[in-house]
């Protein structure tokens, strides 16, 4: 009896996460970091990072709607043997022996047939699908490219293109800010990534999570984890990354510029905008259809004024539901064993450079436009050309108000900001047409 109890207790301890942590320290091969981070120290490091991100989301309120699910997904997946991101597998019994194959029954159908034919085996006794973890299934929303366009639909509902319609020149600022993307592509190629990988990494510079995920899924799915984490982290960290660049590239006089009030926009204009943009962009770059199509559809159901309930669902419950799934599953891609490597570090660095250059390019074009219009444009609004909506516009507004509390740049910055959303989707479309 006592022996059985001891045995059960030992088994219980051996299957616990704490035992796994102590049993997988991976310190027996010296300073081989790849080996060390594949063990429990990697998990501990990632858990600490997740706690830091939770702190930033809760205490500092850096895009908490996104950052908190990402951080918690990261936390869960790095708790040892949680199995939450475990892929589905198939258990076969062949001549009394058990074989475990990666993937579900359907995925393995062809594989079985081939294996049986090659080995001359006529049958197997049992075939049982072992279900994967919860996040493994939720992750299919990313893997199949479903979540990013749905998020874009919600963004479309929540975005007011009025400031852009009132000041169409804003489009130029949205275009200039995409410079960071293409320069990062250059950098990624030089650092040894191939063209498809470089394209996916470069899109991080647009500070647009859904577009970055969408591009990575199509071109470099194996890099999805670090790309998604970098894109969403930089989106959350816009208030930290952008202001120093904005202050460095503009003078106090420029930051003090008050801009003229924008003209009112009619409903007809608002309705025509999504239709015309979809028509033009999709005709030129068909690969952008899921992103631009859903963004503009979302906007249309809002501005049409006759589908308020659809707009409410798309920007409310649906959007938040997808945000929860997307955030948790993006976070869950950061399993220490796969995530902690040199290539992740390179991607994070390239993403940051791309984002900083995009911000700088927007500001510099803003300065040029300021000169050409005789000082009517505050160059700060160029920084909003990266597409982190509406965070980038809010940051512009805040930096402007630091100099002059009566200067309201928010609506002026929203123009380049939403132009940036279209711009980064177009940039993604360019990469998809070049390399897919």
């Amino acid at each position, binding site marked *: 009896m006592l022996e059985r109890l001891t045995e059960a207790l030992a088994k219980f301890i051996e299957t616990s996460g704490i035992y796994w942590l102590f049993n997988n320290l991976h310190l027996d091969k010296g300073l081989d970091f790849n080996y060390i981070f594949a063990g429990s120290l990697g998990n501990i490091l990632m858990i600490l990072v997740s706690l830091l991100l939770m702190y930033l989301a809760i205490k500092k309120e850096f895009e908490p709607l996104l950052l908190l699910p990402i951080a918690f997904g990261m936390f869960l997946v790095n708790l040892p043997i949680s199995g939450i991101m475990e892929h589905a597998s198939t258990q076969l019994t062949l001549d009394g022996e058990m074989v475990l194959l990666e993937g579900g029954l359907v995925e393995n159908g062809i594989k079985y047939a081939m294996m049986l034919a090659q080995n001359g085996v006529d049958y197997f006794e049992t075939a049982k699908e072992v279900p994967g973890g919860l996040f493994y299934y939720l992750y299919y929303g990313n893997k199949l490219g479903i979540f990013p366009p749905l998020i874009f639909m919600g963004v479309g509902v929540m975005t*007011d293109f*009025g*400031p*852009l*319609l009132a000041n*169409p*020149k804003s*489009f*130029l600022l*949205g*275009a200039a800010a*995409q*410079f960071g*993307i*293409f*320069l990062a*592509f*250059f950098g990624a*190629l*030089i650092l040894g990534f191939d*063209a498809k990988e*470089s*394209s996916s990494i470069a899109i991080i510079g647009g500070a647009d999570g859904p577009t970055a995920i969408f591009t990575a899924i199509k071109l470099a799915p194996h890099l999805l984890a670090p790309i998604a984490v970098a894109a969403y982290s930089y989106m959350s960290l816009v208030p930290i990354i952008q202001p120093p660049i904005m202050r460095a590239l503009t003078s106090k006089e420029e930051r003090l510029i008050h801009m003229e009030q924008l*003209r*009112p*926009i*009619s*409903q*007809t*204009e608002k309705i*025509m*905008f999504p239709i*015309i*943009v979809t028509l*033009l*962009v999709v005709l*030129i*770059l068909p690969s952008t259809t899921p992103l631009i199509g859903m963004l503009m559809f979302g906007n249309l159901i809002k501005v049409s004024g006759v589908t308020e309930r659809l707009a409410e669902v798309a920007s409310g419950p649906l959007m938040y539901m997808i945000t929860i799934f997307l955030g948790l599953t993006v976070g869950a891609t950061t399993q220490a064993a796969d995530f902690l490597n040199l290539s992740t570090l390179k991607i994070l660095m390239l993403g940051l450079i791309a984002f900083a250059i995009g911000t700088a390019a927007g500001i510099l074009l803003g300065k040029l436009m300021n000169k050409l219009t005789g000082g009517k444009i505050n160059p700060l609004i160029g920084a909003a050309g990266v597409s982190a909506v*509406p965070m980038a516009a*809010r940051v512009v*507004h805040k930096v402007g108000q630091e100099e002059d509390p*009566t200067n*309201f740049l*928010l*609506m002026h910055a*929203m123009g380049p900001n939403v*132009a940036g959303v*279209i*711009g980064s989707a*177009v*940039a993604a479309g*360019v*990469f998809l047409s*070049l390399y897919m």
Partner: protein
Amino acid sequence: MNILFLLEAVSLNERLAEGTTALIAGMGTVFIILILISSIISLFKYIGKSDRPHNRSDIKLKAFIEAGRKVEPVHTQDDLELIAVITTVIASSLNITTDQLQVKSFRRIRSKN
């Protein structure tokens, strides 16, 4: 060793050429598409003229300002600015645009001291 070095150099040159092509083609396409949309949108103002919104908030605000002018002509300009400032701040904090807000009433409270 020299051959390897040569191969690496060729590869780097190829990568630079690839990067330059994508940079020019990419930025070119982005600018062309966005300039095209921008040009078409700049024509919208002509359609817009016949269909300008006279939304309720505008009308109410104008009526309010008119009423304010009759009662307290001295504060009209201040009030207008104040309403604009308050509306923008509220819109900013709620993450919506000012046209989604409607100013229903606005009252100055005299300082007690």
